[in-house]
């Protein structure tokens, strides 16, 4: 057997792990690049702001864009207060007991459930049992259940990262626990919480399976009028025009994918900039 010198081993190891890093980045670059390349020509103001025509084979994707915005905002309205409140409870108030350990275990497991299961659960609970029908509100509730675990775990992590000494100082000067949380802990944890919120909502924006049975429409000739209407949504629209409509122009498919991808990418960039702002701000 050939014995390699330490320096050769070093080089080989370095090359192998470097290749591994490149190998993971290449597919992402190819996917994003090819979609943006092929979709860019389809994207125009008309494409973004017009209703679909000719059985979605021409026209724009406005109802799908507005529908996704409705779903993300609605999901945020439900999941942010619930998720952040739960995180505050778990991080600041709850003692380390059997029950809080069970709650944490449940949250971790909830985050790992396949999204189609959330969809079926939403169909059973919100659409059928609570009789909300296939609607924006049912879809938002379903997406919220999927998003809340993400928000809770990142927000709890952000709250725990605030040094204990800040809390002790505040309480030591006569502040109550809630005053301490509101005036000291939350402001310090806010960037971390925001990152979690954006990442959670990002997932909600891109998922098809949870809204498939709970609120997404194949095609609607008009925008939804109330939260009890169905809505079109970008990810489901992309699925529909890619698989369900014959003789679909490929540029529209690519254009829709480009818009969805850009939507998700913008939110990711937002999360990343919040994170770096947080790092610059953090001085302890």
């Amino acid at each position, binding site marked *: 057997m050939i014995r390699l010198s330490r320096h050769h081993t070093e080089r080989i190891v370095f090359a192998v792990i470097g290749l591994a890093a490149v190998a993971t980045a290449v597919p992402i670059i190819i996917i994003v690049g090819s979609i943006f390349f092929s979709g860019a020509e389809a994207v125009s103001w008309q494409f973004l702001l017009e209703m679909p025509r000719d059985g979605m084979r021409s026209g724009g994707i406005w109802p799908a864009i507005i529908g996704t915005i409705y779903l993300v905002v609605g999901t945020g309205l439900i999941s942010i207060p619930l998720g952040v409140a739960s995180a505050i409870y778990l991080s600041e108030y709850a003692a380390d007991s059997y029950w809080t350990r069970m709650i944490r275990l449940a949250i971790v497991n909830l985050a790992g459930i396949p999204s189609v299961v959330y969809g079926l659960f939403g169909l059973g609970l919100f659409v059928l049992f609570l009789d909300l029908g296939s609607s924006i509100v049912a879809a938002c509730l379903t997406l919220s259940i999927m998003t809340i675990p993400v928000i809770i775990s990142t927000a709890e992590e952000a709250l725990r990262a605030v040094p204990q000494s800040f809390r002790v*100082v505040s309480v*030591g000067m*006569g502040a109550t626990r809630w005053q301490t949380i509101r*005036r000291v802990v939350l402001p310090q944890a806010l960037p971390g919480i925001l990152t979690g919120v954006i990442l959670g909502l990002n997932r909600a924006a891109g998922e098809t399976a949870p809204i498939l049975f709970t609120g997404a429409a194949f095609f609607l000739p008009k925008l939804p009028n109330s939260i009890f209407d169905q809505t079109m949504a970008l990810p489901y629209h992309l699925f529909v025009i890619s698989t369900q409509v014959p003789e679909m122009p490929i540029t529209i498919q690519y254009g829709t994918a480009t818009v969805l991808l850009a939507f998700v990418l913008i939110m990711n960039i937002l999360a990343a900039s919040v994170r770096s702002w947080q790092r610059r701000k953090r*001085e302890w």
Partner: protein
Amino acid sequence: MSDEITFQIEQLNFYYGNTQALCDVNMTVLPREITALIGPSGCGKSTFLRCLNRMNDTITDTRISGSIVLNGQNIYAPNIDETELRRQVGLVFQRPNPFPQSIFDNVAFGPRVLGIATGNDLHELVVQSLRAAALWDEIKEDLKQPALSLSLGQQQRLCIARVLAVTPDVILMDEPCSALDPIATNQIEELIQELKEHYTIVIVTHNMQQAARVSDKTGFFWLGELIEFDETTTIFTRPSLQRTEDYVTGRFG
């Protein structure tokens, strides 16, 4: 005359779970005196200090018995508002721990949260507190600069100013100089002497010279017991116990 006594501590016992940290401690703290608490690590002096403003309440699985009377009121009585007690009995920590905010916001934190002052009154209170903490002259040009840009010694004086801003009667200090260099330590010691005019001070220290220099009374803790408590000069010149003498002269510790 109970008016002449700030803290009257009787038969104080404190437990962390099943471990007894304080054992039958009796002590009298007089107003506008500096009381130093000395003793080897783990002897219970910090625990004792934190009993005086009920900071130990925030730790789970602790138990306390005996009584601590502050200005005639048992602070562990059920009708006591512990947040008001903590305003009255401020605590300065071992490491300077300002919030990552401006100098002004740090000192204004307590008055804002407790609703003590707003607007011009608040500004006046902040300035007064910074003056009283002997920091004003060094930072008066820029109250908006971040607290963490100050030196450690300045940060510790800022933390003292932050406590003064909620107008306490008593200031507890838990090894306030252990993270500081000799010059900063000297400044804090001078400050403590000045504060004595208006405040009652209880200070935990590992530094024998510091206890000898700044305090009027010294208590020596050993394994959770206050085994000797007397005038500082007595403790450092002719203590009644051999163990105290061994400790203050550095023969063990």
